[in-house]
């Protein structure tokens, strides 16, 4: 039953709304003749839902958890509880029973009860001011455009092939300007590698920071005919910052660090000082093709390889 209790707690957050919901259900039962429609619609349904599904350890633990292994997934079953409808029905029916100024008073009391029992979206930091109409990170969008334009230039100059399907309609990887891999928690490791400074995601200390992500911006804006993500992992140890770079010798970038990305046509960093930027240029493996408004620099591999051959 512990598992069931955990899921129950996750859904309700605190007991305030649970209490209001239970009281509403009791009132619906008590006034079942007056509120016939609501009673028939909600009362047996909610009771059966709790008994047969939500508080059923066999169903929750044994059967459904096979397909939905996490509590976070199982808690989604609670969404078919008509919480908002039941509470609103009972409160609105109660308000309408009053007369004159009493109605205003009771309605205000109920609204205050809801407001103070809960947590408003504006009290949280879930809404952020978008950087553009695309509602993704602007630097990411700019970087995607820089890379896209560059690919188009290469295609028009005949340097790379533009066809992406063979005669059977199967996708052919003719040109892969790849730069990042993202998978589960690994995403943030990879993001750390590529960007020397965060806009969001897990920062170096493992704390999650809010904001538009550079990486997400590229992924969600990019025209995928020209830009795609990579298919290999890069380990956490390969993360580098400007200050870290300063500890290494000049040829470290060219002989050890950059060759690790040999399959990547583009790599992109946020570079605060010129040290790393100059270092990358000096290796001759990558050259700068553009910079976003907030200092994310896009580098391109100097020697392109046509992977279709």
């Amino acid at each position, binding site marked *: 039953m512990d598992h069931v209790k955990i899921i129950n707690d996750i859904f309700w957050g605190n007991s305030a709304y649970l209490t209001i919901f239970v009281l509403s259900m009791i009132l619906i039962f008590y006034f079942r003749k007056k509120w016939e429609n609501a009673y028939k619609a909600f009362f047996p349904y909610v009771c059966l839902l709790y008994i047969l599904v939500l508080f059923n350890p066999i169903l929750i633990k044994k059967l459904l958890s096979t*397909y939905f292994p996490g509590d976070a997934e199982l808690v989604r079953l609670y969404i078919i509880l008509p919480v908002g*409808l039941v509470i609103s029905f009972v409160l609105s029916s109660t308000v309408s029973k009053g007369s004159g100024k009493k109605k205003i008073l009771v309605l205000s009391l109920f609204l205050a009860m809801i407001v103070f029992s809960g947590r408003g979206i504006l009290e949280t930091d879930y809404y952020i001011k978008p950087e553009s109409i695309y509602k993704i990170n602007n630097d990411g969008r700019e970087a995607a455009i820089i890379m896209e334009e560059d690919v188009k230039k290469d295609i028009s100059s005949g340097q790379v092939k533009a066809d992406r399907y063979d005669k059977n309609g199967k996708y052919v990887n003719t040109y892969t300007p790849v730069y990042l891999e*993202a998978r589960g928690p690994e995403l943030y490791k990879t993001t750390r590698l590529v960007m020397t400074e965060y806009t969001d995601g897990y920062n170096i200390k493992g704390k999650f920071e809010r904001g538009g992500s550079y990486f997400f911006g590229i992924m969600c804006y990019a025209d995928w005919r020209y830009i795609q993500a990579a298919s290999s992992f890069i380990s956490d140890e390969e993360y580098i910052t400007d200050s870290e770079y300063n500890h290494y010798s000049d040829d470290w970038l060219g002989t050890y660090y950059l060759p690790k990305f040999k399959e990547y046509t583009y790599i992109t960093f946020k570079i605060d000082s010129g040290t790393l930027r100059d270092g990358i240029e000096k290796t001759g493996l990558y050259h700068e093709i553009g910079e976003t408004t907030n200092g994310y620099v896009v580098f391109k591999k100097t020697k392109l390889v046509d992977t279709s051959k």
Partner: protein
Amino acid sequence: MLSALIFILQFILIPFFLGVVLVPKKDAIERYLVGFCTLLALYFLFYFVSIGNSFKLSTSIILVDTFSAIIIVLFFIINIIYNKRNNKKYSVLNELKSESFGSLKNAFASSTKFVKVIFIISILFILFQALRMIFVSPYIDGDDTTYGTLVQSMSSLNSIYNIGHSKVGISEIYSLDKKYQVSSYYPFLAAISKVTGIHSMILMKTIIPVFFILMSYAVAWLFSGFLFKEAELEKRAYFMLILAVFYEFSFNSYYSFGRRLLMWTWNSKSLCFTIVLPFLMLETLKYFSSYKNEEGKISFSNYYIIIYFINMACASITLMGTIVGAIMLIVMALSDMLQKRRIIPEILLGTTCLPYIINVLFILTWR
């Protein structure tokens, strides 16, 4: 301009026309919601047949063009059926003048000043919640990237799921999880993005949320009409206001209804949980109450067809919708069976779950 027109056609007019055919009651909101679910269901059917036959050859252009052609043909058929049924040579557009709006207008006119004020406040608050989505960006998390890239890649590559998407990114070609492959909602968004020329991010994060929030409250409005009498504007106005405030302040937990509605609005699960499932619940309640009542068999069979389409829409959106939708219907059927000591409408309701069964079988057996 053309984008806006295509969007209006796809998202407003076609659903409404489909609703006119399926819902005899002249209620524009109910017709629209039924039509929208039917549109999702039809797209699912079309997608299902397409990818089942030649998955690797399917491109979004083929899907979009063929589906649009089907919809246009359907539109003409609807017009012919409707004109024949009413024996009049007028456009189905006239049906936009809903009788339910007329009765609402009368109820509003005869209400007290206080009720009018509450009603207007509740409408304004709901509009505020919906329109706010234009100016803010909900917090970005892994789901945004997964589904955002999914739609954007499908839209820009002109292909349906030919690139595998792992949880928050792209892993390898043809490795997409089956549960994503059987969902037609994201290809539907990609198709809308492709047809209208609106970038998928603008569509998903700005336009769709406004629509879906309003649609969710439209379902709640219909629910209020079921719980109270339709003409009881006072109670319905309180109901809507309290509900809107409740959703605004239900951020106690990570998985609340309000959070689904006001944050992840464009997400498939949100569409399922905030619009399709509550609407399915409402239509199922109406289905049970229409069995052997004075309205006769027509109303009952109508609700049966409507529930069938909603179930199909629910199955098309997300795998979670398939499971949760089926659980909800089973519990509702048991609840009705216990209350009214009958079994025939419950068994018939069970047959509407066929889309769920097919979907699950598809997931278990496909490739």
